[in-house]
């Protein structure tokens, strides 16, 4: 997030939610947004194919077709430009690339955008005005925006909108991705990515590499690595022979699970480090028991970049070991000795190599935590990014055309399947399905379908139906609801036994970020 969570409770005067079911996936952020709307009268715009809970409170609700995000943004920007609602001073002083963007956007008057998105042009106009005219507007998104073959375009469009209206660098504004998992932000910050070291220092950059080579005392590869989805494909093709998986469950979380399964089976070595025997661990050659968050010391970085402490509450379970100790031991056995006494020692090393974390120490994290960048010991942390300038100096507009989702409905697969999370479960269910209350409350998956669609297919609420895509099919209980577009169906991906990802598409990825198109698959449904 460019801005901090608590700004959504008070500073933001208009909140635009797109592709985030906030009350289910980031519930506490959802509470804050709701209170801001109810108590302070903040304006709310919700764009989502499903009528999510917050849509009930929204000033404008836009139930657009999955995958048409860019058209929606362009349509809104078209209105903003034509009605003179753009922040020309901000554009002039702080951005570049406006002309090229405006040229593309001119092709998307609200009527055109509305046609593509399958919504009312009036709603696009209303949303554009609300967003542009409010004193401080914040746009928040989650996987609903990014998990598309055009995910990167979607995010860039979202930034365009904020730049166009000067909604950056001030309290209550910003472009605010809500990260799904507790430490996605931290994992990225720490360089658990194929192209960067910590703090996004490129592995292809000689200077950066030299710095890490010096610190680590080895020569490092300057070739970009493989993303997760590409790794699976390469494993399938036989080029990847060994895979180490730490606390991940690709056998449920990755797209096209039949494909994943075959890929993992081809490996010479699958080493899994986890706290449960996950669907992935079951496929492993060697399984190493790590420990849960309750058993470890360390830090997590949340979606607003706030680095916070994790504190050990109990001893390791059984013979399990601290994950960092396992890594040290393995590394040492690989001929590269690593040894630390405590996580704090590791953190101290991180600081020396990670400019944005340089000023953070465990001592300073007692209390409120610190949002990075925090370059020095006396720096207070940075709750709001881009206050005076952007990282690259000027904010860059991107000229983006709308591209259709990779897999569109056709005669054989006439429906759009989209996937997501429930309030009561988390990711692949590894933890939540073993949490007694959550599992009792929601023991199995459902597929949500609109009443007209159900009627057309002669399906009643609670009936088991088969959902099929080009990848495979699963059987699920139908939940007939009103708040969903007529030809869209929705299911959760937490449940290994009815994993939605048997249905999703791994062959088309976002060309830049490598994100699979979880939110749009062509599907059909059948009575059983």
């Amino acid at each position, binding site marked *: 997030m460019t801005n901090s*969570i608590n700004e959504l409770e008070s500073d933001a005067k208009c909140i635009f939610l797109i592709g985030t079911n906030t009350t289910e996936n980031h*519930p506490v952020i959802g*509470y804050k947004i709701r209170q801001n709307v*109810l108590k302070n009268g903040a304006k709310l715009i919700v764009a989502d194919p499903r009528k999510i809970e917050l849509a009930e409170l929204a000033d404008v609700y836009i139930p657009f077709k999955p995958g048409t995000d860019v058209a929606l943004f362009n349509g809104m920007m078209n209105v903003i430009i034509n009605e003179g609602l753009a922040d020309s001073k901000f554009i002039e002083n702080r951005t570049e690339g406006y002309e090229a963007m405006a040229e593309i956007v001119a092709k998307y008057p609200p009527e055109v955008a509305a046609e593509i998105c399958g919504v009312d042009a009036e709603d696009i106009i209303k949303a554009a005005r609300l967003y542009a005219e409010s004193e401080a507007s914040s746009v928040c998104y989650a996987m609903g925006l990014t998990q598309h073959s055009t995910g990167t375009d979607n995010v860039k469009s979202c930034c365009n909108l904020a730049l166009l209206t000067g909604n950056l660098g001030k309290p209550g504004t910003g472009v605010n991705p809500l990260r*799904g*998992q*507790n430490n*996605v932000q931290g*994992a990225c910050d720490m360089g*658990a*990515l*194929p192209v960067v*070291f*910590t703090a996004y220092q490129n*592995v292809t950059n000689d200077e950066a590499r030299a710095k890490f080579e010096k610190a680590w005392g*080895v020569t*490092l*590869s300057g070739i970009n690595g*493989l993303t*997760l989805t590409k790794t699976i494909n390469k494993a399938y093709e036989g080029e990847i*022979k*060994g895979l*180490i998986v*730490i*606390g991940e469950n690709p056998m449920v*979380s990755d797209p096209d699970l039949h494909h994943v399964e075959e890929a993992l089976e081809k490996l*010479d070595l699958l080493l899994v480090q*986890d*706290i449960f*025997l996950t669907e992935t661990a079951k496929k492993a050659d060697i*399984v190493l*028991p790590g420990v849960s968050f*309750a058993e470890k010391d*360390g830090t997590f*970085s*949340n*979606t*607003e970049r*706030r680095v*916070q*402490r*994790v504190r050990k*509450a*109990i001893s390791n379970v059984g*013979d399990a070991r601290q994950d960092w100790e396992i*890594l040290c*031991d393995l590394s040492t056995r*690989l*001929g590269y000795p*690593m040894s630390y006494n405590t996580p704090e020692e*590791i*953190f101290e090393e991180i600081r020396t190599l990670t400019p944005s974390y340089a000023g953070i120490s465990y001592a300073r994290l007692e209390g409120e935590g610190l949002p990075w960048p925090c370059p020095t010991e006396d720096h207070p942390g940075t709750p709001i990014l881009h206050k005076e300038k952007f990282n690259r100096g000027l904010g860059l507009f991107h000229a983006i055309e709308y591209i259709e989702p990779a897999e569109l409905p056709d005669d054989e697969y006439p429906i759009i399947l989209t996937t997501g999370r429930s309030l009561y479960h*988390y990711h692949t269910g590894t933890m*939540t399905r073993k*949490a*007694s*209350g*959550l599992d009792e*409350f929601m023991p199995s998956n459902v597929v949500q379908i609109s009443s007209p669609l159900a009627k057309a297919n002669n399906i009643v609420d609670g009936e088991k139906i088969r959902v099929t895509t080009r990848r495979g099919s699963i059987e699920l209980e139908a939940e007939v609801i009103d708040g969903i577009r007529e030809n869209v169906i929705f299911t959760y991906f937490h449940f290994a036994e009815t994993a939605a990802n048997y249905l999703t598409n791994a062959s088309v990825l976002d060309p830049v970020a490598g994100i699979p198109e*979880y939110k749009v698959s062509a599907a059909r449904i059948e009575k059983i």
Partner: protein
Amino acid sequence: MDIKLTIDGKEVVVPQGTMLIDACRQAGADIPTFCYDPDLKLAGSCRMCVVQPKGWRNLVASCVTPAQNGMVIETDSPDVIESRKVVLELMLSRHKLTCHTCEKDGECNLQDYCYRYGVTESRFDGKVHNLFKDDSNPFIERDYDKCIMCTRCVRACDEITGARAINIMDRGHHAKISTAFDGELVDSPCVFCGQCIMVCPVGALTSKIAAGKGKAAQNDKVLTTCTYCGTGCTLELNVKNDKIVGVTSNRDPELSPVNRGALCVKGRFGWDFVNSPERLTTPLIKENGEFREASWDEALGLAAEKIKGIKEQYGPDSLSMFSSARITNEENYLAQKLMRAAIGSNNVDHCARL
């Protein structure tokens, strides 16, 4: 503007608009409260916090009465003490006194104040209402026979979570907390955030997941960060005999900067996977398609040997690693360091996009 008043003979200076309760606390008087919650709208209804302004006919509830210049306040006059005692006795008269089995035993306001004012029993013959709600939800126990009608749960549900699942039903002595049609929480807009449990001053609302595992007052509490979504809520793991027995939350914004004590159902009730018998407790090696237990030395030795073998035969880029969005920064750092420095490949990623 500052104003001056006298509290229990001490002069205090407070800003205009300060409530008496804060002025009294500033003067060192420990004012007992039930319905007062600084994060919620004021109710002024339990009447436990009453004090005596000199020259006034009646007592006033200090939590809702603004301090006035020149006021002379007594916080423990005989009338004040008598009132508080009677209020406690009135509460006891409808309260199912089962402290010995109560989860709240030891950190219950009712218990504490009865102790403080020496109230052992009520002079008023009680009628415990049989309001216990046999609610089928797996998270929250609602024993309204212990409810003292402070309405903090109602306000927290509305003002923190915004669910508006519960409200006051009926009037007078029959007033009670309930969902819209006095039904179960599952049939209401409840999202099982447990904010109501967090604010309940007595044992009327408790966690079913933590029930019987250890009274909260006797548990150690370790402040940490939630393991689920990216919001990064602070919570307190309750520990007893080296086991996690519950989750509570801390409302101090200094300690709980993001959520200020508020949690969601996963954070508050989703912790017992930690104790699951299915946890992995020893390394496993697969032989002929079956796992067998192994020592660390054997498992790590085998892993290292295989990795080295692959690296030698196919080069470092034939190996890859999925690190995790659920492990710590320190562990992620070591994971990518291992991949890059020990193995020599940049093939490291995690599920950021999934």
